[in-house]
């Protein structure tokens, strides 16, 4: 049984990523929770270590060195609770994204109803659908059994039937699942989640439960044709994923023990925070969080009416990187490059990097390729995630990214705080936000850790977020307009707190910057030209309060959708120019 952390003071939070493991300490400083320090070490899920707890111990040891405080005992075990001599911590929470992509079989009735909801459910974690069985599947049951056996699933998700609706069809579909699970070797029997018609749960338990002992049941993801409710099933799935990881990856069991069961998949913990932030902070616009790491690209978005969480292992920058070419072309990746790099060199890079996911770019050319790949991976993830955004999300044009404020970004590819301009340009290129938004970098990748801690101590995340633990890059203004390159599209005046003013004339195709330091606010008067729209309506301007950040106020006049010049030389020159504007090289 998990213990409560409410009375705890210091909380150690550990994120076990595919490439790196981070240990972060939150403690009470002057009566409020603060992010105090972090330590990092390479993850050790893979050979030769094959035990994630080793990387966790190394990350905690690195944190110890920063803190000047002992957290591990002589046997390298975590000291809990805090001892009278000041060593140790009061509690531990863990998030994990390390581990092979989970192979999932999806079972449902109709393609556009339960199978679609099931797809969204599976996509909320580090899984890939390797086989789908639905009502329109014309294979015989024995062929379906063979297909399941060939798929070697770690997980089977069954979604089907509205509550009180179809029962015979779904039971019929379950026969091959039960039989396939029964004839698998015990150690390979997949975990099974039933998230369908609640009225037949007992029948399902009788039908599948006796054959597949790993059966879990959650509330229906599709209680009626018009309603989708993924959250309870996502919560159950998160628990199941941790159990699958315990089976697959040594050391997860120990972390579960150390943390008293406070262990969650990283994406789920991130989603929990985004859902919370959307409830607390969001006005009409949505809140967007993106996380681009070695294990996956994760897009979570909170809207007034809906929350979405999409995890794309296929767009992760680690072992699956070579597979990115199944979804895009070398040419499309290279369009983001400021250097003239051949397709062959890029292809070799993708395959080489997938051999060694934890390696980093040590040369400029390598960094350019890494960032071009990151842009395309995040672009593809965002395009995929947009399918699940609600229809009533506020937008300037339905074909463009909806209005978000703020946009948060983290993960290995984005959290490099030494060059916030690089990270911002990457986000502008790949997410293509519109209107006015603030952009915040989670350079210490705190968001999932706060999400993991939130269930135990709901004060901690709020106080840590308010304390400025995230890096505000600034406010971004992106007009939507159709114009020729070089045409003036927007004029703006920034009035600082001390009364001084700065002006910008934004031309189509350019990026401009007005400095505004972190913590400062200013009045931004916007005048839209040529029918440009920043969210006030076509051609309409307005006065808004903007907050500063590492870069200040950034105006992106490059158009939406962003169409890069076809001429490669001109395109590379422009990319260099944009990078210069935002403080890059």
């Amino acid at each position, binding site marked *: 049984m998990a213990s409560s952390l409410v009375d705890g003071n210091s909380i150690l939070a550990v994120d076990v990523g595919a490439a790196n493991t981070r240990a972060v300490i939150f403690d009470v400083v002057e009566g409020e929770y603060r992010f105090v320090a972090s330590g990092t070490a390479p993850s050790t899920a893979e050979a030769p270590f094959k035990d994630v707890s080793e990387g966790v111990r190394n990350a905690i040891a690195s944190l110890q060195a920063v803190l000047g405080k002992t957290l591990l005992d002589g046997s390298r075990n975590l000291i809990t609770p805090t001892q009278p001599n000041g060593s140790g911590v009061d509690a531990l929470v863990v998030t994990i994204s390390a581990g092979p992509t989970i192979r999932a079989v999806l079972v449902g009735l109709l393609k556009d109803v339960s199978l679609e909801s099931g797809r969204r459910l599976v996509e909320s974690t580090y899984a890939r659908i390797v086989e789908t069985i639905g009502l329109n599947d014309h294979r015989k049951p*024995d062929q379906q059994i063979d297909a399941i056996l060939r798929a070697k699933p770690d997980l089977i998700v069954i979604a089907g039937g509205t509550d009180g609706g179809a029962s015979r069809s779904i039971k019929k579909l379950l026969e*091959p699942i039960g039989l396939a699970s029964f004839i698998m070797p015990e150690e390979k029997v997949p975990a099974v989640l039933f998230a369908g018609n609640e009225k037949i749960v007992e029948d399902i338990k009788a039908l599948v439960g006796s054959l597949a002992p790993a059966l879990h049941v959650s509330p229906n993801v599709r209680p009626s044709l018009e309603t989708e409710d993924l959250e309870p099933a996502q919560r159950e799935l998160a628990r199941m994923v941790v159990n699958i990881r315990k089976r697959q990856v040594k050391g997860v069991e120990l972390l579960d023990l150390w943390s008293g069961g406070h262990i969650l998949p990283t994406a789920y913990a991130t989603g929990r925070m985004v859902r919370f932030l959307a409830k607390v902070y969001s006005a009409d616009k949505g809140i967007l969080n993106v996380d681009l790491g070695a294990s996956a690209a994760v897009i979570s978005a909170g809207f007034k009416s809906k929350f979405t969480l999409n995890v794309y292992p296929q767009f992760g920058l680690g072992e699956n990187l070579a597979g990115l070419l199944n979804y895009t072309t070398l040419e499309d990746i290279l369009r983001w490059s400021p250097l003239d790099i051949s397709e062959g060199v890029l292809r*070799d890079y993708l395959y080489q990097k997938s051999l060694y996911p934890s390696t*980093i770019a040590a040369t400029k050319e390598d960094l350019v390729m890494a960032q071009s790949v990151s842009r395309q991976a995040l672009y593809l993830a965002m395009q995929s995630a947009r399918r699940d955004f609600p229809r009533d999300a506020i937008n300037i044009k339905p074909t463009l990214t909806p209005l978000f404020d703020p946009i948060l970004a983290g993960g290995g590819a984005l959290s490099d705080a030494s060059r916030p301009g690089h990270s911002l340009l990457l986000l502008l290129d790949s997410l293509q936000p519109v209107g006015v938004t603030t952009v915040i970098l989670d350079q210490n990748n705190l968001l999932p850790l706060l999400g993991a801690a939130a269930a135990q101590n709901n004060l901690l995340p709020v106080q840590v977020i308010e304390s400025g633990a995230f890096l505000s890059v600034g406010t971004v203004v992106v007009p939507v307009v159709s114009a020729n390159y070089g045409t003036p599209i927007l004029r703006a005046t920034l009035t600082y707190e001390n009364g001084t003013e700065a002006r910008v004339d934004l031309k189509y195709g350019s990026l401009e910057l007005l400095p505004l330091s972190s913590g400062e606010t200013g009045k931004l008067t916007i005048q839209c030209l040529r029918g440009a729209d920043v969210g006030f309506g076509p051609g309409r301007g307005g006065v808004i309060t903007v907050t500063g950040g590492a870069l200040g106020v950034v105006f992106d006049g490059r158009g939406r959708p962003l169409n890069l010049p076809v001429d490669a030389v001109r395109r590379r020159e422009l990319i260099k120019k944009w990078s210069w504007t935002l403080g890059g090289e």
Partner: protein
Amino acid sequence: MQAPVHHITGLTSIVRERLLPISGKVLVRLNQKVSPNDVIAEANLAREHVLLDVARILGVTSNMADRLIKCKVDDRLAASAVIAVGKGLFPRSVAAPREGRVVVVGGGQVLMEVGETKTELRAGIAGTVAEIIPNRGAMIQTAGALVQGVWGNGRIDSGLLVNLAEKPEGVLTAGRLDVSMRGFVIIAGMVKDADALKAAADLPVRGLILSGLYPSLIPMAREMRYPIIVTDGFGPLQMNSAAYKLLSTSVKLEATVNAEAYDRYSGARPEVIIPRPISAPPATPHEVETFAPGLQVRMRRPPALGMIGTIVAVKPGLTTLLSGLRAPAAEVKLENGETVVAPLVNLEVVG
């Protein structure tokens, strides 16, 4: 910081697990000496299943069908063997459509495994059986030279080594392969075109040891029936000097090319093993080292991708790299005399 070790070593103890994909019969005993082609375990693998809905065919309830079914789990049935006979004046019957084994009986249905084929597991390397893994296989121990690679096409075979790569940056072309190389394991440098892989298949060879493989050739390399192992990576990469030196000085020796696919979680790696006669078993190599001056390392990313060097100093704290990123790093003196600064995560110890 701890470092993974990439094994390229002239003499070491090698213990390898050889397992059937499913449960089967182990044919060797403890301490038995085995050759690479010896079958050490076998299993019957059924690739298909047939589900017979007896209740529906006979037009009876599931419970009644269960009473009429004559076979039980694990029964082996011949094709056309009667599984159940209905009742009445002209009773209908249900027969096995193919030869197979009964795996499930119940609910008025019978599930059979059909299309069984025998799977044989070979020893792969010459050595001694060090441990029996019941129903699955054995651990085989040997001593010899070991060269690990980064990619393999999943095949395994053995043969005498021949060197067609006169230098580490050699390129294998189809024209360099002739009938005199049939049955050999070939040290081949890098491969840039499909013709070379096809020519090797036509001979056929017993294995190709490549320094680099063009990614576009990966699908074809996977199809080849002979083992292909890549020592350094993808693209125009020369063979690292440690591997080249060891392999090129071992020509005419028997080598096993186990081109097992690299599995980052289990640690399985493609490798070349060259057994050597020994008087006493050598030490087992370390899997992990700690970065320190004097260690021999291999560069896993540019600059100097694939080159071998020696750590001169491990830098304190974080170092700003040429890319602008900051990371723990080391000064590495490369074989060509040049000294570079590389992040520790881009290095692996060679030994």
